[in-house]
């Protein structure tokens, strides 16, 4: 059962990475990174149980925290003028297409 869940996690991670590649806007990419982080947390807790070393859970906690921090950081810096400008350009490009 654990193995099945691990495989499912890997598949979902692959799907998320695909979204990260394609992601037309960069919010899609941020979303992909965020979801990827959550899935990694789950994957690592599962791996810890599969290998029979539950000490690995510490790493999962770190992941959860770091993931949050990096998402917030991304959003914080995406507010800077350089990005704002680019988003607008991109948006208009998308609308016209």
């Amino acid at each position, binding site marked *: 059962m654990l193995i099945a869940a691990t495989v499912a996690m890997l598949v979902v991670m692959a799907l998320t990475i695909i979204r990260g590649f394609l992601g037309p806007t960069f919010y899609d990419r941020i979303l992909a990174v965020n979801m990827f982080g959550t899935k990694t947390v789950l994957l690592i807790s599962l791996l810890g149980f599969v290998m029979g*070393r539950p000490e*690995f859970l510490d790493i999962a906690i770190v992941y959860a925290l770091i993931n949050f921090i990096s998402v917030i950081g991304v959003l914080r810096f995406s507010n800077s003028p350089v990005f704002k400008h680019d988003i607008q350009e991109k948006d208009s490009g998308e609308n016209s297409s």
Partner: protein
Amino acid sequence: MTTVLGLYNYWIVVVLMMIGLYIVIANGNLVKKIIGLNIFQTSVFIFYISLGKVDGGTAPILVEGVELYSNPLTHVLILTAIVVSLATTALGLAIVVRIKEAYGSIEEEEIQIKDNKEC
């Protein structure tokens, strides 16, 4: 078949290393060069860790009833290397920022053109 499976990790490492090297050589953008350098570093990390992996072993934290552990020495080397890589990345990025302020660009070619003009 066994050789393929046994060497798979090293091949991935080599491919990653090639990609990193390619980015460093072929891209003009300095930030991207630093990212390439990071990829290169990571490939070396993975190489060391896969050297230290032992079949059937577990993480090198002693528990009762387990005999076989992975190699702790490579882990130590890489652990410090990762933190140092953070420091070098930060330093590199700081230099990039200063270059941007001095030249107004972080593209290699534009910087060269400006340098030539000044000479």
